[in-house]
């Protein structure tokens, strides 16, 4: 099994252009990675919908118990859960008509990826949405991180 198949820069960049993101497992604790990512995406123009049954509001946004409870359309389902929870989340992502299933660092589930892929969704695995946004559209290079970006073209 090859994770790199799910780390295609073209798919990543295309996904980053879609603004409606549901974050499954978003924590209300300001020090958790998911909270950093949610806040970052909100600050960078994404419409973030939390999915966490234990909280009513996170980052000032109404939180839903599951993906299927969300009344509005979702482009990307971003997952911060243990890998064993991913297949069920993938099925829900298919059911709500999402365009991409995005699994964060360490959330590795080939079974979940296959469910989403078979239904025509894009899949990104073992990547961070914040880092990939910062790499391609943001300012990751301002902190000395290796973006891997080599280009003589001027960004607009």
């Amino acid at each position: 099994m090859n994770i790199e198949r799910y780390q295609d820069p073209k798919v990543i960049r295309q996904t980053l252009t879609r603004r409606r993101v549901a974050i499954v497992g978003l924590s209300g604790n300001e020090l958790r990675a998911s909270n950093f990512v949610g806040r970052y995406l909100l600050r960078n123009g994404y419409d973030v919908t939390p999915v966490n049954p234990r909280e009513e509001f996170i980052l000032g946004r109404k939180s839903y118990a599951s993906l299927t409870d969300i009344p509005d359309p979702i482009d990307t389902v971003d997952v911060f859960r243990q890998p064993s929870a991913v297949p069920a989340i993938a099925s829900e992502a298919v059911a709500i008509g999402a365009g991409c299933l995005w699994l964060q660092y360490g959330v590795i589930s080939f079974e979940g990826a296959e469910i989403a892929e078979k239904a025509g969704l894009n899949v990104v695995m073992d990547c961070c949405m914040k880092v990939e946004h910062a790499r391609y559209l943001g300012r990751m290079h301002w902190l000395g991180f290796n973006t891997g970006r080599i280009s003589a073209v001027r960004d607009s």
Partner: protein
Amino acid sequence: MADREFGFATRTVHAGCRPDPTTGARALPIYQSTSFVFEDAEAAASYFNLQEYGNTYSRIVNPTVAAFEERVANLDGGVGAVAFASGLAAQSAAFFTLLQPGDHVVSSSALYGGTITQLKHFLGKLSVGLDFVDPDDPDAWKAALTPDTKLLFAETIGNPGGNILDIEKVAAIARQHDTPLMIDNTFATPYLCKPLDWGADIVVYSATKFLGGHGTSLGGVVVDSGDFNWSNGRFPVVADPSPAYHGLSFHDTFGFYGYLTKLRAETLRDLGAALSPFNAFLLAQGIETLPLRMRQHVANARAVAAFLESDDRVGRVSYPGLASSPYRELVRKYLPEGPSSVFCFDLPGGREHGVRFIEALTLFSHLANVGDAKSLVIHPASTTHRQLGDAELSAAGIGPGTIRLSIGLEDADDLIWDIERGLAALEDTN
């Protein structure tokens, strides 16, 4: 994950420096500014909370310095890098970030003298234990490990003895002990060797030397592979909630960016040894010619070492690139394009001949540095390594008549001409 895997030379020129989006400037702009205006109050807060990537204050981040950092990280295959005002500042910060009182370090004994002094005195003041081992003996590394050992440290090419580290072997010993291996890759540069590819976890540089390459600017840099598991239970100082950063757990929150984020946001912030933007510009510019320069450094060093080895007025020549070197196999494995251009040779006449030799040279510069475009010469026993006792001297591969050369980019014939005159001066007065 890039669209194309660009080659090393392409990356020396481009990595870290895309055209400036505001002005279109093609060369790396020097952002000579202490501080940067925030877009709004929330942006300010989110930068200091590390929730967004933003410029705040040049002791912690600066866009010119960041370009240099990204360039080195890219060439070494790391997840990122943090630059410092000097190589020793980079090392002290790298140590400080992962060690706490009661910890223990195992280090190669064949190191730059300033590093030996730093380890002994700086770590001693932090109540960190330290043992030096013969880097060529894997059993010595193993035997020195204690339950408190939290770091293994060595140079790729030892300064000045020319010991070549069997990186893969020492990295395996480190991994077995759930301990990071940190390598000073100053002499090799990522052009000649990439220690992360052989299992090292962290690489440090004195950028003052070959990276900058022209003897203009002090600088240092720490590169992290991102692969070390700081949450293995042995590194609470990295993994636990930090009292110095409102309870943030760096490894848990930032994953493989955790160590570097702590190194910058806490250690660089607190120790304060930031690299200046102007030095970062010069160092980044130096790297643009790194492959060309290193090839010529190696070719010249081979020619000079071969000349010295063939001369009976000269004792041992410790260039690991010689066919006679005991490190030949390790060079073939880790430094296939050659073991850089700093090496020693012995004058049998001891200290007095060492001094006389140096005084007769007119093309080599007598000074305390290495890795310059100009050829350099020094007598370590009376200069760089003078703080060390005889036992430590010999552990670092240095005798009373040892001369260290750093071969530059002149014509090799001219360098040999100068050395020939130095050797002739020894005979005249005998």
